[in-house]
């Protein structure tokens, strides 16, 4: 038995504790946000937050999440009530195929939680681990910038 706390809800799962978090989220908890992209921590499609830090869900075993808080894109808001960063991505139409986008949002979320007012250079550096193949980067950067500016006092 493994326990996993996701978006504030504690789950008890009957799975091998070495199972990567990605598969527990997708299959046992039926959450769609984190995606399988490479299985090697090279693309970031599976990015979720673990105690506020971005991690590759494909590399992080469930056992490593015991007693810690996992956050997924579903924890930021819903289609009816999107969170601030999600709303900014929607406003900027910052997706093409969108397969990478949940991972992008989660990595950006961790930046904004630690540095509410990042420079564009900081955004680019922080987002480096996540790949987009459609070439939507300009809009993703713009969406993160606007969400950050919106948080100014």
């Amino acid at each position, binding site marked *: 038995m493994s326990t996993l706390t996701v978006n504030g809800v504690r789950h008890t799962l009957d799975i091998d504790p070495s199972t990567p978090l990605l598969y527990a989220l997708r299959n046992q908890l039926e*959450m769609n946000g984190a*995606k399988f992209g490479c299985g090697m921590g090279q693309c970031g499609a599976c990015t979720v937050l673990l105690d506020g830090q971005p991690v590759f869900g494909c590399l992080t075993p469930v056992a490593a999440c015991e007693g810690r808080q996992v956050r997924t894109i579903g924890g930021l808001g819903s*289609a009816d009530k999107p969170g601030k960063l999600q709303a900014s991505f929607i406003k900027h139409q910052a997706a093409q195929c*969108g397969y990478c986008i949940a991972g992008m949002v989660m990595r950006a979320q961790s930046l904004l939680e630690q540095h509410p007012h990042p420079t564009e250079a900081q955004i680019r550096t922080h987002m480096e681990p996540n790949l987009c*193949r459609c070439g939507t*980067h300009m809009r993703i950067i713009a969406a993160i910038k606007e969400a950050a500016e919106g948080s100014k006092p």
Partner: protein
Amino acid sequence: MNDNIIDLRRRAVLSAGALVLGFTLLPRRALAEFNGMGVPPIANKDLAGSLQRTPMLDAWIRIAPDGKVTVFTGKVELGTGVRTALLQVAAEQLDVAPAAIHFITGDTALTPNEGFTAGSHTMADSGTALLNAAAQVRALVVQGAAAQLKLDAATLRTSNGLVIAPDGRTMHYGAAVRAIDLHRAAQVKSPLKPARDYTVIGHSLPRVDIPAKLTGGAAYVQDMRLPGMVHARVVRPPAYGARLLSADAAAVRQMPGVLKVHVDGNYLAVIASDEWQAIQAMRTLSASARWQRGPALPSPDNIHATLRALPSQDIVVEDKKGPAGKAVFTLKRRYTKQYVLHGSIGPSCSVALLEQGSMTVWTHTQGVYPLRAALAEMLSMPLDDVRCIHTESAGCYGQNGADDVAADAALLARAMPGRPVRVQLMRDQENQWEPYAPAMSTQLAASLDASGTICDWQYELWSGSHNERPGNAGKLIPAQLLARPFIPSPSQPMPMPEGGGDRNAIPLYTLPRAKIINHFLPVTPLRTSAMRSLGAHINLFAIESMMDELAAAARTDPVEFRLRHMQDPRAREVIERAAREFGWRQRRQQYQHQRRPDHGIGFAFGQYKNIMAYVALAVEVRIERSTGAVHILRVTAAVDCGQGVNPDGIRNQIEGGILQSSSWTLYEQLQFSPDGVTSVDWASYPIMRYSNVPGKVDVVLIDRPGAPFLGVAEAAQGPMAGALGNALADATGKRWFDLPLAGPQLMR
């Protein structure tokens, strides 16, 4: 009405517990006549877009008695936003709110057969069909209401799915069309709403698919969870032509969760109740497998010489011998491009279910009908017993592993009847087995006369196939691996004006004398097929590089030199507009006066396939001489794609094309050795990351109200390659002919 073309054989299909009416749109004999784009024969060439091949109005639009409108397209959403744009087109001409339309995309049981969603054809084919079908259906609705209300149709107007009479009476579309059969052939002329009255077309409707993608909703085939679904993983051979000697299936069968180990010739797969268990079983099975190696691949070091020595079909695509000035200056150049990976972020995935003798396959193929035919052949099943339903995945950018993994799912669903089987490829499998963009080389000799005008243009190109789509079952990798293998049908060149390797090989510039030869290589060592823009990427790189070199020889500004050789007014307008918005002349004067070290600017133009969108763009780059890194400081593009349907969607596609082409042009090259493909992950196949993304990208759209839709998603890739090459030449004072361009060769 043309009943021998359209055959509405209605049948009930039990789908997810709901009774859905299904029908096939074609008699069987027509299926043998599919061409390279997988479309049915033309029924009426005078109709607009895909109505030519599917002329019946109710194949596109249906109105239920309660007024609910359902719109069908044979095209599919590949991540470019066409679902939203097509919906806008139908909504505009129907006078129904987009949100009120039930919109169904590529499904062999429900939609027209529009072949492949490819080649930036969607808006021209399906958008045009929907524009006209919707206008005709709206007119029939008005006619029906007029008869019932006993009013002149000309006095009625429509709004939001209602017909409105001058006296204020209203009638919803379902009631209005009650006595009218929409199962009728489209007319040649449509009562189109004039472009000046558009309220939906030309407006940036937010994409309908984006909210779910941003909030963790189910949006992709990867997100499907059908009741009783099991998970499969395949074991692909280590390289082309390898033969299975042995594998320890018995040991894998003992592993937790494993339901089945499937071995058929060189085809290996596992099915488990849980996905992670399937992956572990696949790894164990893969580690136990012993293979006899297949034929060695050629050395990558001299791949272009190897390819050029292969047997070719030599196709003369242009041979112009007009009066021309005497050549006083001639340049001869060679340009090369390496094999390039589609590199979808999500490895290909499919779900299939064999139930009561019917196979249903949820797939992100670009062509549900052609795939269905190939799967039916592979499974030896009647066509009508196989249904392919398009379900989104990560962007494919051409033929990736989508069709192959659909074959995997179908084979494994047949091995486990009654259970939905979900298969996803692993990253290394996607990379090693996908059909790459072909490596290409070209050579060009161009001459100027004494007035600095181009007087001769001799161009040849060598390329393997850009179209290995199914096709027959043998085009599917899993079918090739079976104990009774299917053999791929012979590769065929794609004819002009679309072209394959020769796409955009004919310059749009004025050339009095020109000869252009496509050396099509039917058999090449690596599996290849369509990737966005096909040969246009290197052909426009070559053309636009040469235009700059000739401009320099003629001591003329590159933009001025292009304009001097361009008659097409729309091409001239995008060229002038891009130059103006970028500040080309000022920047060039500034650089001529005082050059900033390692900075350069470049310009390029292309009309995609010489028939789709016009794109001109200018870029400014800075090269880091200590590392060979290229920083794209800014890009300005001007685009004319006719009547724009969703301006923000068009900008998104052009921005994406610019960035994607930057990655191909600067960084990308498939790694392989005689033993096989070694670009198995993102470390061995690096693509553009945020640190190399341009500083700024501006896209200017030229509005053409009411003009035909011109495809846009693949229109920027070729021009961007040309502009980057020209900017690097400007920055370094040296020409670069071999892609990819960034790297140690730029170090000083």
